[in-house]
């Protein structure tokens, strides 16, 4: 068991709204840790439209998804948030009044006085290929991520895809696999040219196989894979394998949020619009993941929600301190926190 990380507030999701929440909490002397399943911050802005323009951030006529993420990171820097990327929050347990224990799929545990769910459109999770009968093999012989390289030692592996994940894992696993076959729909790869060259060299040297086609069927029993069919241009080929690793990018799924006992409406969390608290005391939901009368799934709405949430969270984190309303323009105490006074 790893040590428990103690913090004032844990924010689930490092999208634009989770990031801005750090700012609003920080102004009220509340420290935050953030967890996101993506390996980068920025949520939808970073994953889905980094290069696209956004025109409706108040006071900013035009900014890209990437630009907004960068700007938010600069804005929250004075508050020193800690990020835990590439991890999914799986459970929230109420252990006090209010006090929470939050756990991630990487085995990390947090203890905090309030939890802010800024999970947006849900967690970004790997796309599952629609191969008939794939379900029983998942997590037994079909893996969407590599947790432990050693688990693949001496095995016949099928890596599927043409991007950096597929190529990186091909290069990392090839030395320890019994035999590795990379399957891709076309003989062109979008991954880094250097990785493509290394992969091609291994194929040329006979150290691995490359098949052009799409996986159309699996063979095996009780979750144990023995072979896969690969549909090429003219024929279906049969490749023996013990494990398959498909890499087709990510898609948004609600994920574990559904299991936290919150009052929901059509996969969205119901909140009080004065505090953005859920039906559970000390558990807040802001940004795209929440719903209320008149809700708009806009970044600016999420920012407003973050500000109101922070006021109520203060109540749980610093119960004996009185909250005085202040402007960043004129309050020296706020400016000290921002490092500008």
């Amino acid at each position: 068991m790893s040590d428990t990380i103690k913090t004032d507030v844990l924010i689930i999701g490092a999208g634009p709204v989770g990031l801005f929440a750090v700012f609003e909490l920080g102004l009220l002397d509340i420290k935050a840790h953030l967890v996101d399943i993506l390996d980068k911050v920025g949520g939808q802005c970073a994953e889905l439209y980094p290069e696209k323009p956004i025109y409706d951030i108040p006071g900013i006529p035009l900014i890209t998804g990437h630009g907004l993420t960068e700007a938010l990171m600069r804005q929250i820097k004075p508050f020193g948030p800690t990020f835990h990327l590439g991890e999914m929050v799986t459970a929230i347990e109420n252990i006090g009044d209010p006090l929470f224990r939050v756990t991630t799929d990487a085995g990390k545990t947090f203890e905090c006085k309030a939890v802010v769910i800024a999970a947006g459109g849900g967690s970004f999770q790997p796309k599952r290929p629609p191969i008939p009968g794939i379900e029983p093999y998942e997590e037994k012989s079909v893996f969407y991520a590599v947790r432990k390289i050693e688990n693949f030692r001496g095995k016949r592996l099928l890596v599927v895809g043409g991007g950096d994940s597929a190529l990186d894992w091909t290069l990392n696993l090839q030395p320890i696999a019994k035999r590795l076959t990379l399957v891709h729909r076309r003989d062109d790869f979008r991954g880094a040219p250097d990785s493509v060259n290394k992969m091609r060299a291994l194929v040329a040297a006979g150290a691995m196989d490359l098949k052009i086609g799409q996986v159309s069927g699996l063979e095996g029993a009780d979750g144990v894979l023995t072979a896969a069919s690969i549909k090429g241009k003219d024929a279906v080929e049969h490749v023996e394998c013990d494990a398959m690793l498909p890499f087709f990018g990510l898609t948004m799924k609600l994920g574990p949020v559904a299991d936290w006992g919150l009052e929901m409406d059509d996969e969205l969390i119901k909140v009080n619009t004065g505090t953005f608290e859920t039906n559970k005391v000390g558990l807040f939901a802001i940004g795209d993941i929440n719903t209320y009368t008149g809700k708009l799934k806009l970044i600016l709405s999420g920012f407003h929600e973050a500000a109101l949430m922070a006021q109520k969270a203060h109540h749980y984190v610093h119960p004996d301190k009185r909250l005085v309303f202040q402007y960043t323009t004129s309050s020296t105490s706020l400016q000290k926190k921002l490092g500008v006074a």
Partner: protein
Amino acid sequence: MPKITYIEHDGAVHTVEAELGSTVMETALRNDVASIVAECGGSCTCATCLVHVDETWFAVVGPPSAEEEEMLDTAFEVKPTSRLSCQIKVTEALDGLIVRTPAYQGR
């Protein structure tokens, strides 16, 4: 206005009017073609707006750009006439276009 016909995997057929300059994806969403997901809103970063262009129409629609071809790598059951519908702009030349949608867009 050009007309586009969407044939969904379950057989549902929608023949709808498309606005010039919009995309085949936007037209689908506006007309409740349920099997077009379009998670990234047309940014060519999600590949959840896949369609199979009718063979007789493929020459008119044309092949995908290099960027789109790369995104097609993250779609499923990609065929030689598959395109991402957010990357097909509606023009007069597409009047009568027929596209088919897959059963599964990755979620």
